C-alpha cells in the first residue's frame, strides 16, 4: 500500500472538484474493494476522496421505477420492503453477496464498479493484461477455475464478480453518472466493456466521474424474479455460476423473460437470445433447457473452468423453474 492523502467531501460538487484537482485520486465509500486492491499494490491512488457523507442513500419507488442511491449499503437495500416485494432478484442477489459484515459496509455504486477476483490481476508478481497492459494473461493457461467462459479473449478471461450487477443487467437498470458539466444515463447493459484487446478498459465511466444512483425500470413481472447462485461454500464466496431471471408466465406459457448470468462472463452476461427463445414458449423444463443451451452458446472453457458450462445451464434452468413457480 502506498502512502496517500485522505479528504472528506459532503456534496457531489465538492467530490467532483476534488477529483479534478487530484487526477490520481479515487473515491472511497465502503472501501471493501479499493482498500484490498491498495494492500495488494494493484491500485495506487495518490489520494482517497471519502464520499460517505454525500446525500445519495435513498432507496425508493418512483412511479413504479426503483431508484437506489449510489451510497446505499447492500444490507439496507436487501432489507428494503419495496425491493423485496417488487424486485426479489435484487434482494436475493444482495443476500447472496459477500458476508454480513461486508454487506453492512459496501455501497451499491462500489459493488457495480468492483474489480475482478482473478488471482493474476490481484498478484502483482504475475502477468495480467488488465493490470499491466501487454504483460500477458496468466489465467489463460494457468489457475483459471473461477474465471469466465463467455466474453473472453486471448488477452483476458477474468470473470466479473458482482452478483448485484447480474440482477441489474437482467432488469435493464440504468446508471446515473455525474461529471462536472452535468449528468448522463448509461444502461447497465452497455456499461461494461468486453476485454477484447484492451482489458484495462472495463466500463464507460471516465476518471473523475461519480455514480449518483441506479434506476431499475418498472416491470410488473419483476415481482416474479429470482437469483440462483452456485458456489463452493454457503457464505462469503463468489459464484461458480449464477442466474438472475424474471418470468412473465400466463396460462402455462412464458410471455416474456429477463435473463442474465453471473460467474461465467467477463461482464455480467445478458442473454437476449435465450429471452427471445422463451417468448411464447410453454413454461416447461424442456423450454428452459433449450433456453439454457442458447444462453451458453459460444461458451469456451479454459481447462479448470470447463465445468462452468454445464453448471451454468443447470443454474439457469433452476432459476427459470423457480421464477415460474
Amino acid at each position: 500500500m502506498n502512502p496517500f492523502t485522505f479528504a472528506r467531501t459532503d456534496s457531489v460538487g465538492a467530490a467532483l472538484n476534488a477529483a479534478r484537482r487530484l487526477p490520481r485520486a479515487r473515491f472511497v465509500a465502503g472501501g471493501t474493494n479499493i482498500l484490498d486492491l491498495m494492500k495488494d499494490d494493484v491500485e495506487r491512488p495518490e489520494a482517497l476522496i471519502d464520499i460517505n457523507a454525500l446525500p445519495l442513500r435513498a432507496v425508493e419507488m418512483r412511479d413504479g421505477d426503483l431508484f437506489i442511491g449510489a451510497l446505499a449499503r447492500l444490507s439496507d437495500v436487501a432489507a428494503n420492503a419495496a425491493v423485496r416485494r417488487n424486485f426479489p432478484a435484487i434482494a436475493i442477489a444482495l443476500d447472496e453477496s459477500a458476508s454480513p459484515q461486508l454487506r453492512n459496509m459496501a455501497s451499491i455504486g462500489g459493488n457495480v464498479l468492483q474489480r475482478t477476483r482473478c488471482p493474476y490481476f490481484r498478484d502483482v508478481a504475475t502477468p495480467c493484461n488488465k493490470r499491466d497492459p501487454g504483460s500477458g494473461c496468466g489465467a489463460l493457461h494457468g489457475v483459471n477455475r473461477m474465471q469466465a467462459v463467455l466474453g473472453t479473449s486471448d488477452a483476458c478471461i477474468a470473470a466479473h464478480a458482482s452478483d448485484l450487477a447480474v440482477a441489474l443487467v437482467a432488469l435493464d437498470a440504468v446508471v446515473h453518472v455525474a461529471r462536472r458539466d452535468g449528468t448522463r444515463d448509461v444502461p447497465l447493459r452497455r456499461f461494461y466493456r468486453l476485454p477484447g484487446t484492451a482489458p484495462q478498459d472495463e466500463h464507460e465511466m471516465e476518471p473523475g466521474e461519480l455514480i449518483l444512483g441506479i434506476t431499475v425500470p418498472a416491470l410488473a413481472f419483476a415481482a416474479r424474479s429470482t437469483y440462483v447462485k452456485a458456489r463452493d461454500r454457503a457464505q462469503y464466496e463468489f459464484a461458480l455460476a449464477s442466474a438472475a431471471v424474471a418470468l412473465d408466465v400466463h396460462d402455462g406459457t412464458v410471455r416474456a423473460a429477463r435473463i442474465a448470468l453471473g460467474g461465467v462472463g467477463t461482464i455480467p452476461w445478458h442473454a437476449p437470445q435465450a429471452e427471445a427463445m422463451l417468448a411464447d414458449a410453454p413454461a416447461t423444463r424442456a423450454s428452459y433447457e433449450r433456453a439454457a443451451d442458447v444462453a451458453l452458446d459460444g461458451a469456451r472453457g479454459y481447462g479448470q473452468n470447463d465445468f462452468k458450462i454445464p453448471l451454468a445451464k443447470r443454474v439457469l434452468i433452476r432459476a427459470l423453474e423457480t421464477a415460474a413457480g
Partner: protein
Amino acid sequence: MLHAIVVPSSIGAGRIVAIDDRDAKRAAGVVLVMTHANAPRVNAKKSGEQDALLFLLQDDTVEFDRQPVAVVVARTFEQAVHAADLVRVQYEPRAPQMDMHSATVFTPKQIFGQPAKHERGSVQDGLAGAHAKIDQRYHTPTEHHNPMETHGTVAAWDGETLTFYDSTQWAFGVRTRMAHVFGIEPQDIRVVAPFVGGAFGSKGTAWSHVALSAMAAKMAGKPVKLLLTRPQMFGWVGHRPQTEQRIVVGSDAGGALVAVSHDVSNETSISDEFVEPSSVFSRDLYAVPNYAMRQELRRLNISKPTYQRAPGESTGGFAFESAMDELAYELGVDPLELRLRNYSERNPDNGKEYTSKKLRECYAQASEKFGWSKRTPAPRSMTRNGMLVGWGMATASRGTHRGDSSARIRMNPDGSVVLQIGTIEQGTGSPTVYPQLAAEILGVPHERVRFEWGDTTLPAAPLAAGSQTAASVGSATVLAAQQLRDRLAALGGRVPSDGITIDVDAKVNEEEENRYAQQAFGAHFAEVEVDPDLLHVRVTRFVGAYDVGRILNAKTAGSQLLGGVVWGISMALYEKTRFDERTGRIMNATLADYLVPTNADIPNPELIMIEDDDERVNPAHVRGMGEVSMCGSAGAVANAVYHATGVRVRQLPITVESLLV
C-alpha cells in the same frame, strides 16, 4: 523497537541476479534493507535430520515460491510494508519441479524412528485367497494451516544474549535452533511465548523469520518485530503435503480382512525430508494378519512441509476409511458392520494389549444417536425436500504420544500455589487445565493455583503438538502435585515460612511406554445433502463419539473435538492450495481464496466423550484428544457423498466438478 517485513521471492526456482533496494532505502522511516549482499553470516544448516533448512539470506538460490529474499526494517509497520513493495528483485528463473509424477522419488530413511517400509505376514498370500478386493488410489491436496494469528517474532539483543518473543509451539525448540544458528549457548537465549493465536503444527518449527528477526536486530542495533502477512503464511512456514495413496484391501466373503497394503507418496521440498505418515492409520486399526505399508517422498520446489493437525492419520483416515466403504459396497455389507467384523482387541501390528480401548462404545453410542439403523444402503435412495441425502461413517484412530516434561510447584505459607511449566497455550486451554488438575489433587479451590508458562526460564516442556501436551505436561503436573500433597501431609499440614517447593522431571519410561499399546479412538457419522442438479454438498448433521481416556475439562475437550470435526469437513469439501505449475507460485494465498468453512457450512456437531479413567497409560490418564476427531472425519463425509450421489470421489476436496460426471 523497529518493524521488519520479509520480501518474499516471486519465483519458484532459480537464482537472484540483483536486488535494487534504492527506492526502498529512500522511503520514509526505513532504517535498513537486509539482503544476501549484506546479511550477517549465520548457520542456516540443519543440526539434525528433522530440522528444516533455513533461508537466511546466505546465498542467491531460490528453492520455492515466497522464499525470503530480503528483509526491510523501518520505524513503523506500515512504512516497512510499503518499502518492501519497493524492493525490486531480478531473478534468473528455472522451471520449477511441481509435478509429482516426474519428480525425484526416494524412500526416507525412517519415519519417527520407524522404517519407511514394513510388512507383517504376506500380503501376496492373503490377497490370493481374497473373495473381494479393492485396489484404488486416493489423493489429498497441499493444505495450509492458516492459524488466525500469523507467525511473528520480536528479537532483542542485550550484548551477546538474545531474547525472543515468538509465536511458537515450542519455546525450548526455538532456543535450541537459534543457539545453533547464531553459534551461542542456549543459556544465552530466552524465548517467551505467552499466548499463541493458533498453530496446528505450523509453529512447531523455528522457521526462517525467527532467525531473520534477530539478524535484523543485530544489524539495526535495536529490537525488531517481524510479522508475516497472510499471503506470506503460504511461504516458508510449512504446510501439509499432498499425498497419493494406493490402498489395496482384500477380504473373505463375510468381510473379514485378509490383506491390506497402503502405499503413500508425498511431496517434500528440494532440501528437506518430511513424511506424511498416512499409513500409520491402517497399520494400527483393524484385525488383518497380512499387512504392508510403504512410504516414499518426491522432491518438488515447495517449502518444507510440516505437521498439520493429525499428520498421517487424517490423510490416511480419509483414504483408508473410503477404501473400507468401497469394500462394504463390494460385499453388500453395512459399513458399520464391516468395521465391527474387523475389530481388533489388541494392536494388530505389535499384538500388544491396549491400556484401554472403548471403540465399541463409540460405534454404539454414535450410531444410536445418529440413527444409523434407519439407513437404506443403496446410493441415491434417501432424499429430503428434493435434495439427495447421504449417510457415511468412519473410524477415528490416533496414536498416543508423550514427551518428557518438567514441572515446579510451590505452596506459599498462605496456602496459595504456583505451578510453573514452560509449555504453550495455543487455544487448547493449558492455563485452565493444569492448575485445575493440581488444585483437584491438592484439595484446594482452583483460584488458589496460579500457572506460569510460556518461557524458557521455566521448567522444560516438550513440543506442544501431537496431542501430547496433556499426557506430558499433565503427567508432570500430577506427579508434582501428588508429591506436594504428600510432603504437606508429612509436615502435618503446616507450610514452613519459606514455602514448600517440589521439582519434578516426568520422564517417559520407555519400558513402561512399550508394555501396552496406546491409542485414542472414535466413530464419526456424517449426513450430507446434495442438490441433484447444482451438485453442491452441505454437511447437515454430524455425530461423533470419542474414546480419549480421562476428560480433564469438558469445555476445553469439547472445543478440541469440535475443531477436529470441523477441520475434517473442511478437508473433505473445501481446502486446497492451488499452484500455477509453470511458475510454482501459489495463486490462492489469501483467506478469501483458500477456502475454509464458514459458520453457515457447519451444522452443530453432536460430540460424545466416552469417559474412561485410563490408569495404565500415564499419570494424567489421558490418551490425547487434540487430533483424534480429525482422523477419519473427512472419510465419513466422503462416504456420505458417495451414499447420496453414487459417485465415488477419491480426490479431495470434493467439488461440484468432481460430481459432474
